């Protein structure tokens, strides 16, 4: 099917704006363009918009508007949307790769045919940006793990992985915010909180933000936590 963008009515109160059916930077750019246009000029009755890789879910109040009105509003926004200026902010995230904070780093290096230092440098060299949040509050999915370090997730999840763990699977990387099970590879620990505790800016990243990882040593990690 090539008839993108599509506007699919969802339940009694949402429209899913679909730009494609795969993970692709051009498709994702379309998602972000509509998301920004909608934030700048909300359609009547808008409750929230949720961006993902290839589509944007637009949730509305069914007492105030309907699917057709919202779809028409989104279409008009797309037609009128200039290439919206980049509204992203580059974010820096500190990571400590010390052994006990990075229980899978040696295995990741071994399976990638790299030394531990090379694996760390490979991770640091990635070109990361936040594509979407999901799974749990503040779980920001970043793509950009270099090919040399891309591994399928582990066969079984490990329980009780602490918050702040830097985990990777395939091209994706994220920083955990809760103690949770995960089947991703734990390659470091960050003292940089994604849940900031700041009421004005409760989450570190906006969707679309580029992210740079910066290596810190144990002393800096201890000082920051």
């Amino acid at each position, binding site marked *: 099917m090539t008839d993108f963008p599509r506007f*699919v*009515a*969802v*339940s*009694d*109160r*949402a429209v*899913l704006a679909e730009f494609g*059916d*795969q*993970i692709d930077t051009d498709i994702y750019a379309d998602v972000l363009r509509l998301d920004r246009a909608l934030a700048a000029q909300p359609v009547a009755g808008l*409750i*929230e*918009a*949720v*961006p*993902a*890789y*290839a*589509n*944007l*879910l637009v*949730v509305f109040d*069914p*007492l105030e508007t*309907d*699917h057709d009105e919202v779809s028409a509003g989104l279409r008009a926004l797309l037609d009128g949307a200039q290439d919206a200026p980049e509204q992203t902010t580059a974010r820096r995230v500190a990571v400590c790769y010390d052994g006990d904070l990075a229980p899978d780093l040696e295995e990741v290096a071994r399976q990638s045919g790299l030394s531990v230092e090379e694996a760390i440098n490979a991770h640091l060299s990635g070109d990361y940006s936040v594509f*979407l*949040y*999901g*799974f*749990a*509050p*503040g*779980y*920001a*999915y970043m793509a950009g793990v270099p090919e040399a370090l891309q591994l399928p997730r582990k066969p079984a999840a490990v329980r009780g992985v602490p918050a702040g763990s830097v985990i990777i699977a395939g091209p994706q990387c994220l920083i955990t*915010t*809760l103690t*949770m099970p995960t089947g991703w590879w734990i390659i470091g620990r960050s003292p940089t909180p994604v849940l900031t505790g700041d*009421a004005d800016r*409760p*989450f570190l990243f906006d*969707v679309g933000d580029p992210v740079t990882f910066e290596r810190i040593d144990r002393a800096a990690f201890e000082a920051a936590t």
Partner: protein
Amino acid sequence: MSVARFKVVHAGPHCSVQDAGRPGNMRFGVPASGPMDRLAFDAAHAAIGNPQGGALIEVSMGGLTLECTEGAVGFAVAGGGFKVTLDRETLGPWCVASMVAGQTLTIRPGEWGSWACLAFGGTLEVETWLGSAATHAQSGFGGGAITSGQVVTVAGAERRDGRATAIEPPTFARPGAKVPVVPGPQDRFFAPETLAALTSETFRIGDAYDRMGVRLSGVALPVAGSLDMPSEPVLKGSVQVSGDGTPTVLLADHQTTGGYPKIATVPGHALDAFCQSRSGDAVRFVAVTPEAALKQARADHDRRAAFLGALAEAPGSLADRLARANLIDGVTDGGD
């Protein structure tokens, strides 16, 4: 301001503080949370004379026992057909009453329903997160789980004795055997016969039921072809189908994105009664169009508003009611 305090003598799993929720944060991975049954939530606040939307205690099938240790306060219980007792007196299941220090309130599962709401005449003193006291189960953010041994404090506690009454739960609060669904948005992942099976077969509420969602048992709904779908946003009420063909209806604390296709979505207005279903209950899905679901959402809103408006009217003080009763008696006597 007067304060009422309670000791939680017993709280089953999944009892928590909830308010109207925190919509608008799904883009950060945060579902709205809030009550599983919003009608019950609104009814409890209306019946005790609170403004809508404040924090209350959501009681699960695990039940709740509170001992009042200080002060006096009115309360309302709504949602499901729970067994509500104040010391040895049976109330409810939907009711307004008041209690004083030394009394014990017990809410246990009764004839029907999975969730009850307990609202107090006053303000629950609870933590908030992102401006809301609604508890997000996995993180515990918000007002938090209610657990045995903890202390619950109500600020500005009022008895509101004029509101004491028994409330007849409306029929539309009960789960029905038929549940509307709007097909999609990822119905393209399913063969026509699988889509047909969703509405022609009977499913049952499974044992895996919490605030995140409820798994259904019944025929498998196999995903046609590969499950290679990028993670997509998830709406509360989504019927998500896992790799083995098992459908799960996602509820108040759902994940905000997911890589499993959603074969259909239960509209918002039908979710409250649906949440009162119990493990083993039969569910038959009926396909409706998005337009019909939206029309029903509006009609349902009006029906609820009428019910809640009537509930918010205080029945009056005991003296008022005795006066009314005497008046009626007087008329009857006059006809003798």
